């Protein structure tokens, strides 16, 4: 997760302590110390969803699936995560709001010291539900919208889904919940990107997360809708330009890019072009601390049945199950060669990644996409859009600062 607004406009945000080890210099409350070194955990509390989205990584369905962790099991899991020092749990799905014990679980996480945040399609956030989520201690709600009304509704498989999501955003904001947008960019909805931000900014939203398509779940069925390298570069440039435009107008919006660490290299080059070498050096230093693609290290996923995954998108491979072992024991078990290799991947990367000057801010990007397209865990990320010239351009020189931690929301 790369904060464009932080890197280009120096806008402070609550997640910076996790993203850039920037807790000391931030004015916002930050997660610090031991918790910065533990993964953010996405917990898919259910596979059930009231929508049927084309790109759903969890391949969610309208029916409840067998083996869902019960309320008591969920609380035991949250105790496990708290004991291990997990800083943030992202309640996801399916659609997490279909569970009527969601608030109970959120309150339990909050009391255990694990920051509870939510990923939702927003359509079930009524005024009452927004207030109960707030009262339970929810710290952030990320609402998925994937285009202006027509395109969003087609993507989400239900007419009226856009309007329902906007009502949910409005209810969430009215309840005083920190609320943001989640937008997965594809070829189909890239033209809507700026229009959606303008429209939702008018609703009072000020946080926008743009996801690159990852190749998990139903995402593998729409690879033909993924952006070409030129389209991807253009979309990322739009996010950068838009962030600066808003900042220049005195309207501070937080913008983040998620799921493709070629963006890190691109933003260094963008900073170099628009702000000069000194700014590019600062941006590069933050991104080196961020540490690049977090799979298997700074982000983890627990699915509705308790299976532990390398990321939330990588659902067809599980490291183990929390009904068999505590989460921390699974995550620390480096007898698993894949887990170990992902944590020490730089020397194994092949092709253009092996020669890339920006490998320390990218780490090869998505290993899931490489595996899905190339059948090779260490092949280049097929979504990399850097030019041959860019991967050979020496990045700004900075002293060694080590690696940082991850975030997801």
């Amino acid at each position, binding site marked *: 997760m790369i904060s464009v607004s932080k890197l280009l406009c120096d806008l402070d945000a609550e997640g910076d302590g996790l993203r850039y080890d920037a807790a000391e210099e931030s004015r916002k409350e930050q997660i610090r110390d031991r918790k910065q070194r533990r993964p953010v955990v996405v917990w898919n509390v259910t596979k059930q969803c009231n929508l049927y989205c084309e790109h759903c990584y969890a391949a969610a369905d309208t029916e409840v699936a067998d083996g869902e962790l019960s309320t008591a099991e969920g609380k035991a899991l949250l105790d496990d995560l708290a004991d291990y020092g997990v800083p943030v749990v992202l309640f996801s799905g399916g659609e997490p709001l279909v569970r009527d014990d969601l608030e109970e679980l959120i309150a339990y996480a909050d009391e255990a010291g694990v920051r509870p945040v939510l990923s939702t399609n927003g359509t079930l956030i009524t005024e009452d539900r927004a207030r109960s989520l707030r009262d339970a201690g929810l710290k952030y709600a990320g609402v998925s919208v994937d285009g202006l009304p027509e395109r969003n509704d087609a993507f989400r498989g239900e007419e009226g889904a856009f309007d329902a999501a906007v009502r949910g955003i409005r209810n969430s904001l009215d309840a005083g919940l920190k609320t943001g947008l989640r937008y997965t960019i594809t070829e189909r909805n890239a033209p809507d990107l700026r229009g959606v931000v303008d429209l939702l900014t008018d609703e009072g939203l000020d946080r926008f997360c743009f996801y690159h398509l990852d190749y998990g779940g139903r995402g593998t069925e729409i690879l033909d809708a993924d952006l070409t390298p030129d389209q991807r570069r253009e979309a990322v440039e739009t996010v950068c330009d838009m962030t600066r435009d808003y900042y220049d107008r005195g309207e501070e919006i937080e913008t983040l890019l998620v799921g493709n660490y070629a963006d890190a290299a691109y933003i260094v080059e963008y900073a170099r072009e628009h702000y000069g070498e000194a700014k590019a050096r600062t941006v590069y230093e933050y991104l080196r601390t961020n540490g690049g693609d977090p799979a298997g290290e700074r982000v983890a996923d627990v699915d509705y*049945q308790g299976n532990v995954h390398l990321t939330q998108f990588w*659902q067809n491979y599980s490291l183990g199950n929390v009904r068999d072992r505590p989460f921390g024991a699974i995550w620390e078990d480096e007898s698993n060669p894949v887990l170990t290799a992902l944590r020490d991947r730089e020397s194994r990367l092949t092709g253009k990644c092996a020669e890339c000057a920006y490998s320390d801010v990218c780490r090869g990007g998505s290993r899931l996409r490489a595996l899905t397209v190339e059948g090779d865990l260490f092949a280049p990320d097929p979504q990399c859009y850097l030019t041959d010239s860019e991967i050979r351009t020496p990045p700004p020189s900075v002293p060694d600062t080590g690696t940082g931690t991850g975030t997801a929301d």
Partner: protein
Amino acid sequence: MPDDSLAVTVDEPRDAVTREWELFVREDADGPLTHAGSVSAPSADIAREQAAQLFEWTAETLWLCPSEEVERVQTDAVSTVASAEDGA
């Protein structure tokens, strides 16, 4: 070992949508065959293909076992999640 020391049976499914395959990997001829997670796949052939892609760079041996055929028993101290009961 007394029978009741392994008193907890974990019989919840690992995947309700498609089959789950427990994966065992040996990296060296004289090394142990180690559990290395599981893959989701509708058939043994597809499970084998997925597992090979994940581990072919290091594995000398791969074993795949259908999760529904694996009996999972443990002491009650191993996982508080497995031991948790609703209403407790």
